[in-house]
C-alpha cells in the first residue's frame, strides 16, 4: 500500500488537519485511485478511531474532530471519485434536526460517531423542513434517516416526517431512527419509527443493526 495512505491515517489519528488535507490533495492530484484514498485512507482511519473509542482511549470530542477532518478531505476526494465513476462508502445516512428546533449538538455527535462505523453521513442541518428531508430521501436513497429534536413541542415533527415519507411512497425504502432528550422507545414505537437511541454510541449500534451490518472487529 502507498505509504502516503498510511500517513493519511496517522494524520487523522493525530487530528492534524493541515497534514491530512495536504496528503489527500497530493494523492488525488498525483492520480491515486480516489476509491482507495477514501476506503483505505479516510474510512479505515475512522473505523480505527471507532475501535479506540470503544476501548476508552479516545473521547467523543476527538471523534468529532476527526470527523471534521474526514469531511474536509472527502471534499477533495469526492469530485475525483464521481469523475472516476467509483462507489462512495457503504450505507448512506441522512440526518436532520426537525423543523422548529435549533438544537443540533446531539445530531452532530451522532453524525461523527456514525463515521466511525463506516457510514456515509449526509447532514441536512437544523430546523429542517419536512419537505427537504423527504426530498433528500428521494434523491440520495439512504439506508437510514435520523431525526433529532430536543423540545417537547418539536418532537411531534418526527411523526410528521414519517407521515410525509409514507405519503411520498418512500417509507418502506428507508429505516427511520429518532433521538433527542424527550424521545423514548415508547414514542418511537408510537410514531412508527424503526428505532430510538438515547445517545450517540447507542445510535451507532442501532444504525448497524438497522443496516444489517456488524461493527468491524476490534
Amino acid at each position: 500500500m502507498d505509504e502516503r495512505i498510511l500517513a493519511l491515517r496517522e494524520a487523522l489519528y493525530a487530528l492534524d488537519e493541515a497534514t491530512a488535507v495536504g496528503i489527500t490533495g497530493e494523492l488525488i492530484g498525483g492520480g491515486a485511485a480516489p476509491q482507495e484514498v477514501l476506503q483505505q485512507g479516510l474510512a479505515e482511519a475512522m473505523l480505527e478511531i471507532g475501535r479506540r473509542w470503544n476501548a476508552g482511549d479516545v473521547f467523543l470530542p476527538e471523534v468529532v474532530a476527526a470527523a471534521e477532518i474526514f469531511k474536509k478531505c472527502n471534499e477533495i476526494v469526492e469530485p475525483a471519485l464521481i469523475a472516476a465513476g467509483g462507489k462512495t462508502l457503504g450505507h448512506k445516512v441522512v440526518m436532520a434536526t426537525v423543523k422548529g428546533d435549533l438544537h443540533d449538538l446531539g445530531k452532530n455527535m451522532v453524525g461523527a460517531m456514525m463515521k466511525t462505523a463506516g457510514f456515509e453521513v449526509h447532514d441536512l442541518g437544523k430546523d429542517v423542513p419536512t419537505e427537504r428531508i423527504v426530498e433528500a430521501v428521494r434523491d440520495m436513497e439512504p439506508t437510514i434517516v435520523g431525526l433529532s429534536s430536543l423540545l417537547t413541542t418539536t418532537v411531534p415533527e418526527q411523526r410528521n416526517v414519517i407521515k410525509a415519507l409514507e405519503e411520498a411512497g418512500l417509507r418502506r425504502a428507508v429505516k427511520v431512527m429518532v433521538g433527542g432528550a424527550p424521545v423514548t422507545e415508547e414514542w418511537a414505537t408510537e410514531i412508527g419509527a424503526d428505532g430510538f437511541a438515547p445517545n450517540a454510541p447507542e445510535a451507532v449500534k442501532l444504525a448497524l443493526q438497522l443496516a444489517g451490518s456488524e461493527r468491524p472487529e476490534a
Partner: protein
Amino acid sequence: MSAEGTPRIRPVPLRLRLDPFTEDEIERIHSATLRVLERTGMHIRSPRLVKELERAGAIADHEALRVRLPAEVVEEAIRLAPLTYRLAGRDPDCDIVLDGANSYLTLDGCASDLVDLETGLRRSSTKADLERATRLADAVPEITIIWQPVAAQDQLTAVQPLHEMHAQLTNTSKHIQQMTAIDPHNARGIVEMARIAVGGERALRERPILSAFQCTLSPLTIDGDPLEAALVYAEAGVPCGWVSMPLMTATAPTTPAGTVVITNAELLGAMAVVQLLVPGAPTFYGVCTSTMDLQSGSIANAFGPEEQFFSFACGQLARRYGVPSELGTFGTGAKTQDWQAGAQNMLSGLVSYLAGGDMLCASGTIYAGSVFAFETVILDSELVDIIRFMNEGMSVTDEDLAVDVIEDVGPGGHFLAHPHTLANMRRGWQPRYFDRGTWEEWEAAGRPSPRDRANERARQLVAEHVPLPLDNGVEEQLLEVIETHRKEAEGADHG
C-alpha cells in the same frame, strides 16, 4: 405534625454564605464576559429586534443577525434591572420577596417522562400527571415556586403551555413560574390566564402570581420567539428571567471558567437586550450550566464538583450585578432515589444555598432533569429541611449554654428528664424519611428504602391534599382562553 401548624411555604434563611472566588477573580470573569459580548456578540434570530437594538446602542449586523454589545451599553442596561421584587401567590401566605434574606426552592421542569406513582415504571407524561405533580408540590412547604414538572403531552401542541397553566392554576395557589411558553402567542395566553385568576391587568402588576423565564441557546444565541415571549411578559409586568444551560466541552469551552464566561455572557446579553427594549423590567439570572460525559457526549449523569463551581461563581456574579439569581440545584443522573441521587442532591443543594441563590432550581427530577419522580420531591424536602436547619444556625444564648443545667445535673448524672431538656428538645432536627429504625425492624418491614416511605407519603398527599379553589366562574374563563387560542392556532395553520 399538626396540619394547622404547618406553614404553606418554608423558605431557607440565607445566613451561611461562601464566596470562594476573590473579588479579582470575579472581575476577571466580568471583563472577559464584556469582551465576548463586545467582540463576538450574540446571534439574535429576529430581524425586527436586531433593528430595535441598534437604535438602543448595540452594533448590529443585520444580515448575520449578530448583535455586538459595547461594555457601557451592557453595564448601563443591567443597572436598570431591579434588585428586589415580590413574587405573589394566589394565596397571599405563599408570597415571597426576592431580597437576599431567603432562598426559595422551585419545583423542577419540564420533563417529558415521569415515574408512575402506582407502577413505578417510566412513561410519557399527560395533563393529568401535571395536575397530580402540581398538587403534590402545593402540599410540600419546602417547594415555594412552581415550575411545570411534566409536559401536558396529551394536549394539542400549539396550546400545550396554556393547558399546563390551566392544570397549575387549578392545583396550586403558590407562585407559578412559567417555562414552557416560549413563543409570544402562548406567552400572551399565559398572561391572559394569570390576569383572569388574579383579577385583571392591574392586579397582576401589583400581585404577580406569575413569573417566567426564557432560555438562551448556547453558545451565545437567542431565538426570536423566546425573546418576543420575554417582551410580552416584560410589558405585562410579569418578572421574566433568563436561564442559560451550556454544556461544558460541547456548547461551552472545556474549562469551567470559560464555561462560566459563556453562561455569564448569555445572561448579561439577554438581560441587557430586554432592558434596552423594556427598561426596568424585573428579571433574574438563571443558571443550569452542566458538564458533558466525554465518552458518550451525553449530559454527564455524574453531576460533580464542576457544577458546584458554576453555582458559586454565578451566585457571586449575580450579586455583583444586583439581580436575583436562580441557581441549579438537585442535579442527579441517578435513575431512582438511590445513593447517587442522595449524594448528588445533598451536594448541589448545600452548595447552591451557600452560593446565596435567591431561587434554587429545582426539585423533583432524576436522570439529568428528564424524568419527574414524585418521591424525589418528598426526599428533597428532607434535604432542604436539613439545610434550612443548618442555615438557621446554632443558638448560643445563656439558655442554650445551659451552665445552670449542667451544674444541676453534675458529673455522672443525665439530662434526659431535666426540665431544660423537656422544654427545649423539640427545637432539635427530626428526620422524616431517613431510616432511623433498627436492623430487625427493617427486616420485618420487608427491607423498605426511604423511597418506599416517600412513595407512600406522595400517594397520600396527591390523594388527600385539597388546593385552594379558584373563584367561581374563573375556570370557565380560563378554558375560554385556551379555546380562543386553539382556534387562532388552527386558523394560522390553515392560513
